[in-house]
């Protein structure tokens, strides 16, 4: 194990409990094989009910018309696109953790990457709902895709950032899903090999594509993972870059800003990590994964939060500087209006949640206090939702001609739709932890070796 020499001997092990390989499999696959515990059942039921409510509300909205939302002639987008960007942002952390951290050989990622990737895919699904239901005629949403048709010259407008969105997000979803699934294959094979149930054996045999566990398959698996990671890494940047272009390419002051691509990417990583934290803190409790998702993981993610939070803060101040420096009266007004106008409360919520509060993460004591970290992750999620709300709504509600200035407030339909997407998110996530290995068994075993060795050494000393 010469390759492991670079690992500091005093580093905390990534898996903190002394387990045999078999026991690791048992721990992780327990719920999958033995059925869920009561905690899971409760959580899943609540999520599912919320999802049903969401479906009902969306059905009402589509059958009645978008007028049941609070939008108006001036503010044409608000909660819908806010929620879209919010969910897409959340969908960032998964691929970032699995792809970029894989490329940088950050071994600590192994026990969280599976869940993070699943979260990504689910979040992108949640995000995908909004561009469809926000349309006036959602039954024609397929017109957004470049499918062959008989309309002659009438096709798609490739100049429209909304169309870029369609491509960016569908690509991202595809690559993320493939990456996630490839990563699942060895573990699916483990399930197949361990199970006594003939049905489960059949299903998992099919799902694991005849994985044999030979050196050759492992080799190819690792190469493929690297290639996919290489493909996915630029997507992490591109997706939110393109989402930001929905705004950046427009003429509306407050939207028309070149800083948006990096700003949005940083924000997405920020919000994505916050959501991963929220989820994993719940998962490790609900699924008893405390020894696999350790305080070390939490600590590392808190540090990422701290850094990206400050990047976002830098972006906020840069925007203000540019508004002043540009000498553009509309731009100046928009930013003054954000900070001091009728939606100032939203702006200051955003700044507090994203820039001011996360500063507590400088302290190790905070980072290791799981309750505080959980609260922090929620705070950041709230802050990042408000960031999108502030960008979208406050820019639109007072733009060029004061005669059209208007206020926006959401209706119960919009609020319930948003809550409903949380229902979808958690329903799918709980299904995932129940029916698929929520931690990459194979990869955890690969890092466990060091842990055990280190542990021996520590004991010897």
């Amino acid at each position: 194990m010469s390759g492991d020499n670079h690992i500091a001997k005093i580093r905390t092990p990534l898996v903190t409990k002394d387990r045999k390989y078999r026991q690791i499999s048992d721990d992780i696959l327990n719920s999958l094989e033995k059925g869920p515990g009561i905690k899971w059942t409760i959580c899943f039921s609540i999520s599912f009910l919320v999802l049903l409510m969401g479906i009902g509300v969306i059905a009402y909205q589509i059958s009645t018309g978008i007028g049941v939302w609070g939008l108006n002639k001036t503010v044409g987008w608000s909660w819908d696109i806010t929620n879209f960007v919010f969910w897409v942002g959340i969908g960032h952390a998964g691929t970032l953790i699995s792809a970029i951290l894989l490329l940088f050989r950050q071994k600590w990622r192994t026990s969280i990457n599976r869940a993070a990737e699943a979260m990504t895919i689910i979040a992108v699904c949640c995000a995908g709902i909004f561009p469809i239901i926000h349309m006036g005629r959602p039954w024609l949403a397929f017109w957004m895709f470049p499918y062959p048709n008989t309309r002659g010259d009438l096709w798609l407008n490739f100049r429209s950032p909304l169309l870029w969105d369609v491509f960016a997000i569908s690509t991202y979803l595809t690559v993320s899903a493939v990456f996630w699934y490839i990563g699942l294959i060895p573990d699916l094979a483990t399930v197949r090999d361990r199970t006594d149930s003939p049905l489960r054996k059949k299903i998992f045999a099919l799902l694991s594509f005849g994985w044999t566990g030979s050196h050759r398959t492992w080799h190819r698996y690792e190469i493929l993972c690297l290639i996919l990671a290489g493909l996915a890494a630029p997507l992490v940047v591109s997706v939110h870059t393109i989402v930001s272009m929905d705004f950046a390419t427009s003429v509306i002051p407050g939207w028309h800003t070149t800083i948006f691509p990096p700003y949005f990417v940083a924000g997405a990583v920020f919000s994505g990590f916050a959501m991963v934290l929220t989820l994993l803190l719940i998962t490790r409790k609900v699924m008893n994964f405390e020894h696999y998702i350790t305080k070390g993981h939490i600590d590392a993610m808190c540090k990422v939060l701290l850094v990206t939070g400050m990047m976002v803060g830098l972006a906020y101040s840069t925007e203000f500087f540019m508004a002043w420096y540009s000498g553009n009266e509309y731009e100046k007004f928009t930013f003054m209006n954000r900070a001091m106008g009728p939606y100032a409360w939203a702006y200051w919520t955003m700044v507090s949640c994203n820039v001011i509060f996360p500063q507590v993460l400088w302290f190790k004591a905070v980072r290791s206090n799981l309750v505080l970290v959980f609260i922090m992750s929620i705070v950041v999620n709230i802050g990042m939702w408000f960031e999108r709300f502030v960008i979208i709504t406050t820019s639109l509600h007072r733009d060029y001609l004061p005669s059209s200035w208007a206020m926006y407030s959401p209706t119960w339909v919009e609020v319930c739709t948003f809550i409903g997407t949380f229902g979808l998110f958690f329903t799918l996530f709980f299904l995932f932890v129940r029916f698929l290995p929520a931690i990459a068994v194979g990869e955890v075993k690969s890092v466990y070796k060091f842990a055990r060795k280190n542990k021996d050494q520590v004991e010897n000393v």
Partner: protein
Amino acid sequence: MEDSKKTTSKIQDTRSNAGGNGYWQDVHQKALSEDELKNEFMESEQDRFVAVKSRRSFLQIMGFSVSALPLASCMKIPTKKAIPFLYKNDTIVPGVATWFATTTRECTSGCHLLVKTREGRPIKVEGNEKSSHTRGGTCPQCQASVLSLYDSYRLRSSMVDGAGRDWAGFDSVVATKFAAVKEHNQKIVLVTPSTNSPTDLNLISKFKEHFGNVDHICYDAISYGGLAKSYSKAFGNGALPNFKLGNAKLVLSFGADFLGSWYSPIKFTKDYSKLRDPGLGRNMLKHIQVESVMSLSGSNADKRIVASKARQREMLSQLLSLVESGGAAGGRSTEVRDLYQSLASSRGKSLVVCGDNDFKTQNIVIKINKALGNFGKTIVASKSSHHKWAIDSEFEALVNGPGPAAIIFWGTNPAYSYPKGSKFADFLKNIPVRLALTTAENETSKMCNYVAATNHSLESWGDSITLDGELAFSQPVIQALFGTRMAGETLLALMGSSTKYYDFMKEFWRKNFFSKQSSKLSFVDFWNHSLHDGVVSLAGTVQEVSKFDSSIPTNVKISKRVPASQSLSIECFETNVMGDGSCANNPWLQELPDPITKMTWGNAAHISPSTASSLGIVSGDVVKISGGEKAIELPAIVQPGVEPGTVGISFGHGRSVTGKVGLGLGANAFGFVRYNGECFSHFAEGGISLEKTGRKEKLAQTQTHHSMEGRDIVREQTLSEFQHGTGHKGHDVKLISMWSDREKKGHQWAMAIDLSKCTGCSGCIVSCNAENNVPVVGKEEVINRREMHWMRIDRYYKGDDANPEVVHQPLNCQHCDNAPCETVCPVLATVQSSDGLNQQVYNRCVGTRYCANNCPYKVRRFNWFRYPHEDPVENMVLNPDVAVRERGVMEKCSMCIQRIQEGKIEARKQGRELQDGDIKLACQQSCPADAIVFGDMANPKSKISRYLKDKRNYTVLEELNVKPRVSYLTKIRNKE
């Protein structure tokens, strides 16, 4: 628009000579037997429009509509004989509009119109450019009148004691009653508005002759009694003024909203806008307005003085003594002296008008004008016009006196508009025979035991005489939709005559007007020509009066000035949208933003900012206003430019008996009108209180931010700046584009709006609604900021909110060359046409609303819901050339693309080039100020090309470089 192609006379006079009811439409119809025709459609009339259920009933309606057109022209034909399209009239080509000239009775001005009918249905009115009265201009009310025609709340049959009766039954009951009255020589009172129809007046005199003891009393809801009385006293009985604003250099208005609602606003706006051209230099009309509430006229004034009604009277009497003494009388305030100086420097070319309905105040105004030598130049007193001649004391005496045996209300609704409603009810209770002639149930008809359902003015024959003595025709443009008949016919029936109103009118014209002209040899020719043109000028209709009685009293009572905090007064005023409230059931008018407050669906108490802050009131607080016996609750609106001691309330709201559209909106201001011993004063002082109720109400305003925030949106200059070229921001920005310019082939459409001319009257909005099937969304949705108007008028205040300067800016889609909406639409639902229009493709739109977000002008409108088109009667107003949009799609101004296409097709059919002016957009055509110019900018000789080269030309948000095709001409204020 060439009249020859647009206006078709539908008189086939030969038919009327046949007599009786056996008229035939053409040879095919004649060939059909009576039975065949009868069996064609068997349904009763009432059922016909209730619901279109099947293809068959659709065909019925179509057949009916088609038949209505020729039918309506001259005679009654049994309505069951609908003519199917198989036997079609030569003048009706499906898809081609037929135009008829007529005159509306829906508005103050009495606009002269051309009515566009498609397949027999009137769908749009436009101004008649042959008229010398309104000269092609129209007002919001007559633009909306076409929708009132299709109001399903209208009466469908006459009623006796609340139960529907057919005409034969009705006539037999009512005629018997009237015959009995006549037998006992009891008194009959006929109440009408001050009608200016010579035929109606003739009919009334015949009616008087027949019944003997008849009083004809004129009653105008919004009274001009003070003015009428003054002129009668000063110039002899029956004399009324005609104001010739076109001859003036200075107009000084004391509270008269002559551009909005006062006397004859469209005529005034035409004159006014011509003179508001800064190219006239020093001859540009100067407008000074002294008023207590912010009116449309005040918002256009070069100088606006805020003064309470009492102060206005004081200023007028001071001005009179200054004018009469040649400026010698001293001790006057500089304000009045300045006014005097302005007037004195334009003697004979000035005009002082006053909206105060007070006899003595109007006397002062007459004397001032007289002393300034304005009579004969800017004012003419004549006996020919019957415009607003009601004498209030007659009606007041009627209500206070013993009731007659029978009373007839013809087109008036005093139960709503008479200030003391309960007194009027008591008065009416004791009259045994109460007959109302009305198109729809109203407050008065509810109190009447006989209700005769009358035709809408677009279904009626009639005539009128304008202020300038021009005769104007009204002709039916569709056969009566419901079981109604012309009001005059009911009077004829009461007299036991079987003469049709049409014949009566024609006979009257033959006797009285045919002889006064010499150009037409036969009466038929004269009649047909007059009918075709809609207007006819005859010699000798204007009888100018020169006799002047200078002893008219001018000792006007001026109440002592007290601080606003101690005493409030109420100023009731008319707006050019809701008028006297008779159009309250018209959704286009209800949803039309008031030009000043931008409020829709109801009225509000206008309170000055200073009074509001001292009383702790903000806009939307419901306040209780009490004065005398009357108290109403209304939301307050903090209105800049209102005199601090005045509470302004507009007329026309608070209807209690009307259709579901107009019911329960706002409050009735007529309760505060006071009879001052001579006339109904719209101004109430003393004993007025205003208190907060603690409730709040959302105001349905289409604009809630009223400052331009220092942005360069509406540009304005003073006349001297304009003349010296200072203060002007021309095309001074160097703009670079990433895109190469579009190739410009063929026509290149462009629009320019002259902000100096536009008064903000908002007629263009209604015109656009009618032309483009713009949906009405209702009060809640306006509060949600979702009104659908393609054209809006932005109104901004500038300066001190005690007396701000006001600008109006019509804003429709700017049809940008580099349109931000086009780049962002993912499905290419909005694209540029080769002739420079930004086109919205409804079928392709999926409704992302990205285009609306990215529109810097916020002119795009989204169909949030499926807006109701459930009323089959109302749907008849829809323009078949324009798609009704589905829910979920974006829409916006199309530059009336259907009109552009029509114009191009017409030119091609005639084998000629399209001429400048061939195509007129709906907004442009209806604009009484001629502020909107549209045309081909590729044609260097076109008017639009000249406008684009004008040094006042600019585009809004030029720095964005979106290159709008709509440009504006800088507003010029005539001041130093």
